[in-house]
Protein backbone atom coordinates (compact mmCIF):
# COMPACT_ATOMS: atom_id res chain seq x y z
CA UNK A 1 0.00 0.00 0.00
CA UNK A 2 1.66 3.27 -1.12
CA UNK A 3 1.69 6.23 1.20
CA UNK A 4 -0.76 9.04 0.54
CA UNK A 5 0.78 12.20 -0.94
CA UNK A 6 0.84 15.38 1.14
CA UNK A 7 2.78 18.62 0.59
CA UNK A 8 5.87 18.66 2.77
CA UNK A 9 5.10 22.11 4.13
CA UNK A 10 2.52 24.88 4.10
CA UNK A 11 2.46 28.23 5.84
CA UNK A 12 0.11 31.05 6.67
CA UNK A 13 -0.19 34.14 8.81
CA UNK A 14 -2.35 34.35 11.93
CA UNK A 15 -6.00 34.77 11.02
CA UNK A 16 -5.56 33.38 7.51
CA UNK A 17 -6.78 30.03 6.18
CA UNK A 18 -4.62 27.19 4.92
CA UNK A 19 -5.53 23.95 3.18
CA UNK A 20 -3.51 20.73 3.30
CA UNK A 21 -4.14 18.16 0.59
CA UNK A 22 -3.91 14.37 0.79
CA UNK A 23 -3.90 12.51 -2.52
CA UNK A 24 -4.44 8.81 -2.87
CA UNK A 25 -6.13 6.52 -5.35
CA UNK A 26 -9.53 5.05 -6.08
CA UNK A 27 -8.51 2.14 -3.82
CA UNK A 28 -8.29 4.32 -0.74
CA UNK A 29 -9.20 8.03 -0.56
CA UNK A 30 -11.37 7.99 -3.66
CA UNK A 31 -13.14 4.75 -2.87
CA UNK A 32 -14.50 5.45 0.60
CA UNK A 33 -15.64 8.29 2.82
CA UNK A 34 -13.22 7.37 5.59
CA UNK A 35 -10.27 9.73 5.88
CA UNK A 36 -8.81 10.89 9.17
CA UNK A 37 -6.49 13.80 9.96
CA UNK A 38 -4.06 13.99 12.88
CA UNK A 39 -2.18 16.90 14.43
CA UNK A 40 1.18 16.24 16.04
CA UNK A 41 3.18 18.83 17.94
CA UNK A 42 6.91 18.11 18.40
CA UNK A 43 7.46 15.37 20.94
CA UNK A 44 3.73 14.85 21.45
CA UNK A 45 1.18 12.16 20.71
CA UNK A 46 -0.80 12.47 17.47
CA UNK A 47 -4.26 13.93 18.04
CA UNK A 48 -7.31 13.07 15.95
CA UNK A 49 -8.69 16.25 14.37
CA UNK A 50 -11.04 14.95 11.66
CA UNK A 51 -12.55 11.52 10.96
CA UNK A 52 -14.91 10.16 8.30
CA UNK A 53 -13.69 12.98 5.98
CA UNK A 54 -15.67 15.76 7.64
CA UNK A 55 -16.45 14.90 11.29
CA UNK A 56 -14.78 16.56 14.28
CA UNK A 57 -14.27 14.77 17.58
CA UNK A 58 -15.57 16.53 20.65
CA UNK A 59 -13.25 19.35 21.68
CA UNK A 60 -11.73 20.06 18.26
CA UNK A 61 -12.37 23.69 17.26
CA UNK A 62 -14.67 24.26 14.30
CA UNK A 63 -11.80 26.16 12.66
CA UNK A 64 -10.74 22.72 11.46
CA UNK A 65 -12.74 21.22 8.62
CA UNK A 66 -12.34 18.36 6.18
CA UNK A 67 -13.52 17.66 2.66
CA UNK A 68 -12.90 15.32 -0.24
CA UNK A 69 -13.04 15.49 -4.02
CA UNK A 70 -12.19 12.44 -6.08
CA UNK A 71 -8.94 10.93 -4.87
CA UNK A 72 -7.92 13.98 -2.83
CA UNK A 73 -8.94 14.80 0.71
CA UNK A 74 -8.27 18.19 2.26
CA UNK A 75 -7.92 19.68 5.72
CA UNK A 76 -8.69 23.38 6.00
CA UNK A 77 -7.71 25.43 9.03
CA UNK A 78 -9.34 28.84 9.18
CA UNK A 79 -8.43 31.69 11.51
CA UNK A 80 -4.90 30.36 11.93
CA UNK A 81 -3.48 30.56 15.43
CA UNK A 82 0.09 30.14 16.64
CA UNK A 83 -0.80 26.87 18.40
CA UNK A 84 -1.85 25.35 15.07
CA UNK A 85 1.83 25.13 14.10
CA UNK A 86 2.43 21.37 13.97
CA UNK A 87 2.76 18.37 11.68
CA UNK A 88 -0.44 17.08 10.10
CA UNK A 89 -1.01 13.55 8.80
CA UNK A 90 -3.87 12.02 6.84
CA UNK A 91 -4.87 8.36 6.83
CA UNK A 92 -7.42 6.60 4.66
CA UNK A 93 -9.47 3.43 4.82
CA UNK A 94 -8.38 1.03 2.08
CA UNK A 95 -10.86 -1.80 2.29
CA UNK A 96 -11.78 -4.64 4.60
CA UNK A 97 -8.89 -6.17 6.53
CA UNK A 98 -6.44 -3.69 4.98
CA UNK A 99 -4.43 -1.23 7.04
CA UNK A 100 -4.93 2.10 5.38
CA UNK A 101 -1.91 4.19 4.37
CA UNK A 102 -0.82 7.36 6.12
CA UNK A 103 0.30 10.43 4.27
CA UNK A 104 3.90 11.48 4.61
CA UNK A 105 2.98 14.45 6.77
CA UNK A 106 2.81 18.22 6.26
CA UNK A 107 4.58 20.76 8.43
CA UNK A 108 2.40 23.80 9.05
CA UNK A 109 4.26 26.99 9.89
CA UNK A 110 2.36 29.97 11.29
CA UNK A 111 4.32 33.03 10.17
Amino acid at each position, binding site marked *: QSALTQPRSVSGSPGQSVTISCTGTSSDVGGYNYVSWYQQHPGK*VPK*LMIYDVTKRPSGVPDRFSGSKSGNTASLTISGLQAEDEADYYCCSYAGAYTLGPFGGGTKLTVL
Partner: protein
Amino acid sequence: EVQLVQSGAALKQPGESLTISCKASGYTFTRYWIGWVRQMPGKGLEWMGVTNPSDSDTRYSPSFQGQVSISADRSISTAYLHWSSLKASDTAMYYCARPGDQWLPYYWGQGSLITVSS
Protein backbone atom coordinates in the same frame (compact mmCIF):
# COMPACT_ATOMS: atom_id res chain seq x y z
CA GLU B 1 -13.08 7.77 28.87
CA VAL B 2 -10.92 5.57 26.65
CA GLN B 3 -7.34 5.31 27.86
CA LEU B 4 -4.37 3.44 26.43
CA VAL B 5 -1.43 3.27 28.83
CA GLN B 6 1.82 1.96 27.42
CA SER B 7 4.91 0.54 29.06
CA GLY B 8 7.92 2.78 29.42
CA ALA B 9 10.98 3.54 27.35
CA ALA B 10 13.57 0.85 26.80
CA LEU B 11 17.25 0.79 25.83
CA LYS B 12 18.23 -2.54 24.30
CA GLN B 13 21.15 -4.04 22.46
CA PRO B 14 20.94 -5.47 18.93
CA GLY B 15 19.84 -9.10 18.96
CA GLU B 16 17.90 -8.81 22.21
CA SER B 17 14.20 -9.57 22.49
CA LEU B 18 11.59 -7.12 23.75
CA THR B 19 7.88 -6.96 24.44
CA ILE B 20 6.07 -3.69 25.06
CA SER B 21 2.52 -3.43 26.33
CA CYS B 22 -0.58 -1.28 26.09
CA LYS B 23 -3.31 -1.50 28.74
CA ALA B 24 -6.73 -0.38 27.55
CA SER B 25 -9.60 0.90 29.63
CA GLY B 26 -12.85 2.78 29.21
CA TYR B 27 -14.40 0.52 26.56
CA THR B 28 -15.15 -3.15 25.89
CA PHE B 29 -11.71 -4.46 24.92
CA THR B 30 -13.02 -7.26 22.73
CA ARG B 31 -15.26 -4.91 20.72
CA TYR B 32 -12.47 -3.26 18.68
CA TRP B 33 -9.24 -4.26 17.01
CA ILE B 34 -6.12 -2.69 18.55
CA GLY B 35 -2.71 -2.16 17.03
CA TRP B 36 0.62 -0.39 16.80
CA VAL B 37 1.99 2.58 14.86
CA ARG B 38 5.71 3.23 14.36
CA GLN B 39 7.33 6.64 14.10
CA MET B 40 11.04 6.59 13.37
CA PRO B 41 13.09 9.64 14.43
CA GLY B 42 12.08 12.66 12.35
CA LYS B 43 9.78 10.58 10.16
CA GLY B 44 6.06 9.95 9.63
CA LEU B 45 3.52 7.50 10.98
CA GLU B 46 3.31 3.87 9.84
CA TRP B 47 0.66 1.28 10.71
CA MET B 48 2.44 -1.89 11.81
CA GLY B 49 -0.50 -4.17 12.43
CA VAL B 50 -3.68 -4.81 14.39
CA THR B 51 -5.09 -7.67 16.40
CA ASN B 52 -8.65 -8.65 17.30
CA PRO B 53 -8.74 -9.36 21.04
CA SER B 54 -11.89 -11.44 20.71
CA ASP B 55 -10.36 -14.15 18.49
CA SER B 56 -6.63 -13.27 18.16
CA ASP B 57 -6.91 -12.67 14.40
CA THR B 58 -3.90 -10.47 13.58
CA ARG B 59 -3.09 -8.55 10.40
CA TYR B 60 0.21 -6.88 9.53
CA SER B 61 1.28 -4.24 7.07
CA PRO B 62 3.53 -5.89 4.47
CA SER B 63 6.61 -4.02 5.74
CA PHE B 64 6.23 -5.50 9.21
CA GLN B 65 5.08 -9.05 8.42
CA GLY B 66 7.59 -11.45 9.96
CA GLN B 67 9.47 -8.63 11.72
CA VAL B 68 7.28 -8.27 14.81
CA SER B 69 4.49 -10.10 16.59
CA ILE B 70 1.30 -8.45 17.82
CA SER B 71 -1.00 -10.07 20.35
CA ALA B 72 -3.54 -9.29 23.05
CA ASP B 73 -4.66 -10.76 26.36
CA ARG B 74 -8.37 -10.07 26.74
CA SER B 75 -8.36 -11.17 30.38
CA ILE B 76 -6.32 -8.08 31.30
CA SER B 77 -7.29 -5.81 28.38
CA THR B 78 -3.69 -5.51 27.22
CA ALA B 79 -2.10 -5.54 23.78
CA TYR B 80 1.52 -6.42 23.09
CA LEU B 81 4.21 -5.78 20.50
CA HIS B 82 7.09 -8.24 20.47
CA TRP B 83 10.47 -8.40 18.79
CA SER B 84 12.52 -11.60 18.95
CA SER B 85 15.75 -9.99 17.73
CA LEU B 86 16.03 -6.22 17.72
CA LYS B 87 18.00 -4.25 15.15
CA ALA B 88 19.34 -0.71 15.34
CA SER B 89 16.76 0.24 12.71
CA ASP B 90 13.99 -0.63 15.19
CA THR B 91 14.86 2.54 17.11
CA ALA B 92 11.63 4.53 17.09
CA MET B 93 8.61 5.72 19.03
CA TYR B 94 5.87 3.12 19.08
CA TYR B 95 2.26 4.13 19.66
CA CYS B 96 -0.56 1.84 20.63
CA ALA B 97 -3.66 2.84 18.68
CA ARG B 98 -7.28 1.80 18.86
CA PRO B 99 -9.09 2.30 15.60
CA GLY B 100 -12.77 2.69 14.90
CA ASP B 101 -14.60 0.25 12.68
CA GLN B 102 -12.62 1.33 9.58
CA TRP B 103 -9.18 0.64 11.05
CA LEU B 104 -8.15 4.28 11.23
CA PRO B 105 -6.55 5.24 14.56
CA TYR B 106 -9.03 6.98 16.85
CA TYR B 107 -7.39 6.74 20.29
CA TRP B 108 -3.64 6.77 20.95
CA GLY B 109 -1.39 5.66 23.77
CA GLN B 110 1.29 7.98 25.09
CA GLY B 111 4.06 6.21 23.14
CA SER B 112 6.99 3.98 24.07
CA LEU B 113 10.46 5.08 22.95
CA ILE B 114 12.58 2.10 21.99
CA THR B 115 16.30 2.67 21.46
CA VAL B 116 18.44 -0.14 20.09
CA SER B 117 22.15 0.52 20.36
CA SER B 118 25.32 -1.34 21.21
